[in-house]
């Protein structure tokens, strides 16, 4: 008898065969695609798409996506029409599932009416943006969120082992970027290097990245960028549907299963609802030469959403819960610098380990809850008013390698560190009706956050209140090729610092400041568009930077906060050139130049800190002026039908200008080159079978500050990945399947941005199989 509780990956593999048992029917084909503005490339919401012959159709959603199901093979004419736009027809021969995008031209005479009556379309950002969705997102969805984002130019991760990955946007991470989970600012323990975002990647239908200071819209801390984790919208058609996802990973024998069900009721109360859940279990990871002891992971997540959408009023409630238990590699736990130097000298972990699902000490247990209520009121004359209320609760327990000394027997398993953070937010945004080609938002936001440190005195207890007010306007006079955006925000933050260990700090601090943004988009005829953004944002010093006092076991360093820190002020300039011939070539080049005044960093002390455990190198939080500049480049070019070359490049130069030195933990230069072959003669099709071969090339980081690290940055590496995906049909039932092989050649390497590089290599080859089975009429 196989114990499935211990072998989730086996369960996952078994479930892979489930669809074979499912029944099928005739007329199973579908046509899907997107309706876009032919000139701007923006999605057009609520266009009608119909099949003339079959007299069936669909209405595109807010993002312009449409889908018509249950079609028989045959010849059809697909018609797309929308008020205020011209109408398009596509004759087509339907034999397999097809994707057809429509590009409609707005008819100039009716333009005003469209703006007045039309649904607000998400405006294109004037900053550099990037996004991950569809197969690109799905292929690594079982891995931590940050890992999936790495394939985008300019995005890296700061890892603590393979299971904790903090996203890094153009060199900035942690408190300098904001993660929006379903519209709500993720408030966990972002400050710590070993604290990854507490988000189930399967919630996301799409992950968008905004690079650069975006403090006006997203709040004062967003000086480095924003990550938006976006679930799909609740269904607006009646019916029932869902999807089932399963993934198995060879390395760590990890199995992931995720399911989603959604429905929309018919009748008087047009309620939509969705439930979603994910189970994950993995064991010890393996490098090419040895196992990494105690690197297992367990995750149990679920979420639900209920929404009501009427013409004038919408309300949606969403709840999600994230629970994880993470093993921290045993050999990376050290007591003092001698231990660390011993580990570096050994060049590999003390013990080779073996495979096990057991998660021992040290470990982290994290719970994160999010509850939000979002309501929107569309007023016929005054515009749109929306209010977002949310509550988050983050509960983190860290267990040291060593059980606690002198505890009563029932308390011996208590954690060494325990934090609870509760955050309430309220955001009220008024989107006014367009006035003289101006569209804009005015908003108020409020946040209250409370931290209780129940164990461990690293961070004091505190309460923070934050109030902000912003105003953003966008000027767009179609078809004039220039678009302008400007915005301003004022934030006030008040903090009350309470107890830390046995001491009472009892300080109250207040910070307030302005953020501003100015951006422009200029579209040259047909091919090229330019985006320029100049933004200034600020970040109040975090409590951890003000009052940290203690030894970090992972990094063998003593860190001391500085209560006199001033806020950081960033001035961010970014220019993006985009090229898109709407056929076979798209490219983007983003140049950025960021100055951060009073950049907070850890400055090494001359004298080590002496403790009962021996000497630790000591660091003080201090401020400097930092300059981060670089470029991100990406290219997709279908040079022969079916064959696409993809290339990504990220370069970054970071400088500490007061010390005339480099800044630690900055990503090294990296390149990704892929060759993708898409089967079938329609490369436009989103779900066409494909195979992609990728070379990831990371150079050695040579720009590191002197005397702040125990070992030099590891040499650069080249890694090969392989990926394939296809959608099969078992009669009516579509099955999306994918294969991803990371580190195809089982190369041994270490990554500068992984804090466990002192102790062990990166994981070796990882073969991942995934299957997604959508079902019902709402998929």
């Amino acid at each position, binding site marked *: 008898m196989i114990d499935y509780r211990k072998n989730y990956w086996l369960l996952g593999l078994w479930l892979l065969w489930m669809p074979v048992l499912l029944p099928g029917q005739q007329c199973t084909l579908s046509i899907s695609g997107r309706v876009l503005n032919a000139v701007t490339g923006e999605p057009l919401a609520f266009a009608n798409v119909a099949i003339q012959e079959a007299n069936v159709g669909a209405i595109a959603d807010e993002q312009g996506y449409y889908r018509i199901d249950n079609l028989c093979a045959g010849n059809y004419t697909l018609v797309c029409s929308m008020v205020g736009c011209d109408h398009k027809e596509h004759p087509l021969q339907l034999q397999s599932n097809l994707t057809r995008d429509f590009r409609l031209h707005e008819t100039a005479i009716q333009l005003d009416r469209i703006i007045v009556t039309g649904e607000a379309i998400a405006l294109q950002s004037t900053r550099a943006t990037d996004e991950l969705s569809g197969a690109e997102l799905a292929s690594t969805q079982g891995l931590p969120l940050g890992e999936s984002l790495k394939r985008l130019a300019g995005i890296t991760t700061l890892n603590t082992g393979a299971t904790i990955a903090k996203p890094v946007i153009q060199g900035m991470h942690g408190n300098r970027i904001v993660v929006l989970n379903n519209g709500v600012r993720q408030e966990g323990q972002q400050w710590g290097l070993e604290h990854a975002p507490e988000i189930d990647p399967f919630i996301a239908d799409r992950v968008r990245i905004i690079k650069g200071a975006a403090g006006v819209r997203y709040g004062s801390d967003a000086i480095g960028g924003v990550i938006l984790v976006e679930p799909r919208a609740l269904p607006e058609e009646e019916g029932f549907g869902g999807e089932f996802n399963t993934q198995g990973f060879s390395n760590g024998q990890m199995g992931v299963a995720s399911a989603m069900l959604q429905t929309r009721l018919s009748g008087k109360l047009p309620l939509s609802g969705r439930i979603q859940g994910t189970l994950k279990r993995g064991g010890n990871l393996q490098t090419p030469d040895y196992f990494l002891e105690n690197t297992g992971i367990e995750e149990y997540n679920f979420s639900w959403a209920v929404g009501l959408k009427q013409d004038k009023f919408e309300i949606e409630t969403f709840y999600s819960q994230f629970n994880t238990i993470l093993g921290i590699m045993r050999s990376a736990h050290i007591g003092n610098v001698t231990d660390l130097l011993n580990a570096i000298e050994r060049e590999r972990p003390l013990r080779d380990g073996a495979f096990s699902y057991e998660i021992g000490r040290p470990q982290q247990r994290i719970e994160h809850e999010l509850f939000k209520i979002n309501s929107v009121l569309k007023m016929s*004359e005054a515009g749109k008013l929306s209010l977002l209320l949310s509550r988050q*609760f983050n509960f983190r327990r860290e267990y040291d390698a*060593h059980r606690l*000394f002198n505890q009563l027997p029932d308390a011996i398993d208590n954690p060494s560190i325990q934090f609870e953070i*509760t955050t309430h937010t309220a955001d009220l945004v008024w989107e006014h009706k367009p006035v003289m080609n101006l569209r804009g938002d005015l908003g108020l936001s409020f946040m209250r956050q409370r931290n209780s440190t129940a164990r461990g005195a690293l961070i004091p207890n505190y309460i923070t209140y934050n109030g902000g007010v912003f105003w953003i306007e966008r000027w767009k006079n179609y078809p004039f090729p220039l678009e302008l955006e400007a915005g301003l925000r004022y934030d006030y933050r008040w903090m009350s610092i309470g107890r830390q260990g046995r001491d009472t700090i009892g300080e109250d601090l207040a910070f307030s400041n302005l953020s501003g943004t100015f951006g422009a988009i200029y579209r040259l005829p047909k091919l090229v568009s330019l985006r320029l953004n100049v933004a200034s944002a600020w970040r109040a010093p975090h409590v951890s930077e003000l009052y940290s006092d203690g030894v970090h076991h992972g990094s063998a360093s003593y860190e001391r906060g500085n209560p006199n820190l001033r806020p950081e002020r960033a001035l961010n300039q970014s220019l993006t050139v985009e090229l898109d011939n709407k056929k076979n070539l798209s490219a983007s080049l983003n140049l950025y130049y960021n100055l951060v005044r009073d950049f907070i960093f850890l400055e090494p002390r001359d004298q080590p800190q002496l403790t009962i455990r021996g000497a630790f190198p000591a660091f003080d939080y201090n401020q400097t002026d930092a300059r981060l500049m670089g470029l991100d480049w990406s290219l997709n070019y279908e040079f022969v039908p079916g064959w696409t070359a993809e290339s990504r490049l990220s370069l970054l130069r970071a400088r500490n200008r007061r010390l005339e030195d480099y800044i630690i933990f900055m990503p090294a230069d990296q390149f990704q080159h892929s060759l993708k072959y898409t089967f079938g003669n329609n490369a436009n099709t989103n779900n066409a079978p494909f195979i992609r071969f990728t070379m990831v090339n990371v150079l050695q980081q040579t720009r590191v500050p002197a005397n702040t690290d125990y070992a030099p940055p590891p040499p650069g590496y080249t890694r090969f990945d392989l990926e394939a995906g296809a959608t099969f049909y078992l009669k009516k039932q579509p099955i999306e399947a994918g294969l991803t092989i990371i580190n195809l050649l089982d190369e041994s390497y270490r990554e500068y941005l992984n804090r466990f590089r002192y102790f062990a290599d990166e994981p070796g080859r990882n073969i991942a199989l995934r299957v997604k089975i959508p079902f019902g009429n709402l998929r």
Partner: protein
Amino acid sequence: MRTNHLQLLRFFSILLLSSALLFSTSCKKDSDEDPDNEQELITTVILTFTGGGTTITAVARDLDGDGGNPPVVDNITLAANTDYALTVAFLDESDPTDVEDITEEVLEEADEHLVCFVATGAMPKPTIQDTDDDGKPLGLVSTLRTGAAGNGTLRVTLKHEPDKNAADPCATGDTDVEQTFSVRVQ
């Protein structure tokens, strides 16, 4: 405009209701106003040398934890050419009203612990006399014989989860305590 007012009214009443909902759920899990910030640690190492008819005690003590003041470490003065028995004890004196003896726990988990000694100069290296349940060295009790007069140092390290089968067990495991004492043999 009238409908607008009604809409607004309805909007805000729903807001009120929903915010009440939000805040009522929030009260459950928030912890007490006065959390217990206790963190257990070893604050004190006591070396007791018995020999030549005398007992010599040397203490290394860091009551304020990792930050703040460095540990205060006594100097050791031993007699030349004398046999000594050395015992090592660990205390948690962070709460002066409730001093805990950590030595007992080291003894209980003897197979997971090891006391390592590094001696320099005139200080001879202590020879470990006690063992854990597996017959491997533990280090709470040791012996040494001093030689000629001179100066030296003794480094005492308490290792957690060392590999006692390794060639050099003291290069493995993680360190719970590490203190260096100055020694004078006269």
